[in-house]
């Protein structure tokens, strides 16, 4: 039985390998959060990448050194777990021979995956991870050679939000409630406390919880006792509506602030009681833009997936654009050449605004959009330049 199976399998595998080498596709890996705590993040990332690839492949592919080569996406699910993200990175790079990897998106997955990409010398491009340590070496503090990102970092985003709270909303007393077992909330809380204090505000309370907690009553009762006028909640989209609901039920009247971790429409669905009304968040992208390329992106995305694109989708789309430009400029489908051409990239204009990679930085300078939450929709408020 075994013998009988072996031969056809061998022939099949030869056939397949022959096919793929003849066709010459550009293999790009996607390391996305398709299951686990934040599946909406991974879904947006994969959707936008597919939309981009569809556009490119309709024109026959990318022009690489005079040959038109279509892009092929290889999607791996990291389950929003750090260990799985590293394993997926390992598999995509060493077994499936991708040219470059897009993702992971959440920082707790992006950081371990970046270590793998760096050690295997493959370009990794995270569309949404805002933690500084994704692109930086933990020991030396210099940029990891192979890791780039397509968004601003917490260090840029959160101070801008704190500035908006103190200068435009004139809020002075802030409390913070964050998840200590997750990367983004912890670093965002840290930046917010520093920035809010240096803007002349006062942090009256800083409370924590751990991933998976659903009861925040003890922390919120403590926060209520200090009577803050703003409560910063750098939680992911599944926690924020719960915290807001419990806070309002306890009688907390503070304005809620959040970072870009709030920005998916899924959060608005979970907040059907509209407890987040009147909140503000900092974000990468607003769907209310009038730029023609943004409008056509939104229209196509909505037609194909039946919902508005969120910032993760928009950033993934731009990240794919920057990567494609680097591949075209490299002129050959080769990891080192693509890396070198990416390292030389300085300016890119995408749907989320301008990307400027200054002085060899792997983190682009980008403008920050402030959005409001009202009756189950995000509204554009203002743009803050870093």
């Amino acid at each position, binding site marked *: 039985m075994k013998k009988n199976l072996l031969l056809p399998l061998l022939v099949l595998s030869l056939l397949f390998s022959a096919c793929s080498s003849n066709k010459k596709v550009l293999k790009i890996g996607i390391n996305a959060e*398709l*299951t*686990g*705590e934040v*599946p*909406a993040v991974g879904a947006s990332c994969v959707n936008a990448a597919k939309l981009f690839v569809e556009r490119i492949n309709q024109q026959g592919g990318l022009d690489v050194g005079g040959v038109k080569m279509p892009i092929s996406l290889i999607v791996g699910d990291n389950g929003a777990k750090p260990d799985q993200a590293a394993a997926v990175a390992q598999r995509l790079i060493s077994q499936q021979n991708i040219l470059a990897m897009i993702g992971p998106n959440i920082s707790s997955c992006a950081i371990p995956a970046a270590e793998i990409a760096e050690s295997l010398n493959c370009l990794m491009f995270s569309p949404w991870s805002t933690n500084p340590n994704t692109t930086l070496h933990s020991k030396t503090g210099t940029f990891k050679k192979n890791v780039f990102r397509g968004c601003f970092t917490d260090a840029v985003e959160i101070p801008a939000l704190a500035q908006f709270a103190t200068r435009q909303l004139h809020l002075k007393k802030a409390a913070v409630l964050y998840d*200590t077992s997750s990367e983004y909330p912890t670093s965002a809380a840290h930046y917010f406390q520093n920035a809010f204090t240096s803007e002349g505000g006062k942090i009256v309370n*800083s*409370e*924590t*919880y*751990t991933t*998976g*907690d*659903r*009861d925040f*009553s*003890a*922390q919120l*009762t*403590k926060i*209520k*006792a200090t009577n803050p006028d703003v409560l910063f909640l750098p939680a992911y989209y*599944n*926690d924020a*509506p*719960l915290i807001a*609901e*419990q806070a309002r*039920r*306890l*009688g907390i009247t503070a304005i809620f602030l959040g970072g870009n971790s709030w920005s998916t429409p*899924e959060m608005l*669905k*979970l*907040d*059907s*009681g509209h407890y987040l009304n009147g909140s503000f968040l900092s974000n990468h992208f607003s769907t209310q833009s009038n730029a023609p390329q943004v409008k056509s992106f939104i229209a196509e995305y909505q037609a194909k997936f039946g919902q508005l694109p969120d910032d993760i989708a928009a950033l993934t789309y731009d990240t794919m654009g920057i990567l494609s430009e680097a591949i075209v400029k490299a002129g050959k489908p080769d990891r080192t050449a693509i890396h070198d051409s990416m390292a030389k990239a300085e300016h890119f204009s995408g749907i989320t605004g301008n990307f400027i990679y200054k002085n060899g930085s792997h983190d682009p300078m980008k403008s920050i959009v402030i959005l409001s939450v009202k009756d189950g929709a995000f509204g554009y408020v203002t743009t803050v330049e870093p």
Partner: protein
Amino acid sequence: MNYFAQQTINALQLGSIYALIALGYSLVYGVLTMINFAHGDLFMLGAFVALILESVVRVPFWIALIVTMAVIGLLGALIERFAYRPIRKAPRVSAIITALGCGLIIENVTLGFSPYPRHMPTLLVNTSYYIGGVTISSLQLTIISISILLMVMLDLIIRRTRFGIAMRALSFDRAMVPLLGIPANRIISLTFALGAALGGSAGLLYALAYPVISSSMGILIGWKAFVAAVIGGIGNMRGAVLGGYILGATEIISVTLLPSTYRDLIAYSLLLLILIIKPYGILGTPPVQKV
């Protein structure tokens, strides 16, 4: 003062839910000396059954509670019949692995159907009462009182009915009871159903109190309730209830008095201390060696 009164209400709500789930662990352990690690996932499934009931047929609260308990109870009995009974005579570790496996299956099937966290619609009119600066919602009162009602009912079943007597006899001597003509398998099935139904009711109440539900929500709560059952003395029903409230209270008190970052450290150190002083739990009794 208000502040502490508020925290007491918070602790009662959290403790009630822990206690309801802990009872499921203790019931099963009482008759089979086996830890049903799938219990946390049955709790999670209870929340999803309630969600389906509410989003598809929109039944009133009492019916939702009864149907959820019935569905999860039936599922608990089925798991016992088809997964645990065949290996009842196998070594203890096999039962633990089977239970963990059942839990993972339930969790991943749910994940397959619903990878996204879902919002639980509100079932009860939720009015908040402000009494001297303390906020109590009718939802909190409902959760606390229904939990207590269910616990009292369970206590009556165990102490006053023939089934309860058979159950207690079974936990006292599993070899002797079938010899007296008591259908041991049926009693065991019913015990599983009862424990699972309580877990299901906790799932429904939890989903009402914390209305974002996801397939992974049973893991952490399941472990905490297990800890509560052990603290109270696993196998002892009143102990499970006591353990649930103690765990809820320690979690809330440690946040109240200290920075919340130390919550789990303080709460679990305290529980560890209880176990050092009372190794069989607060109301547990050490097994008597028969000669």
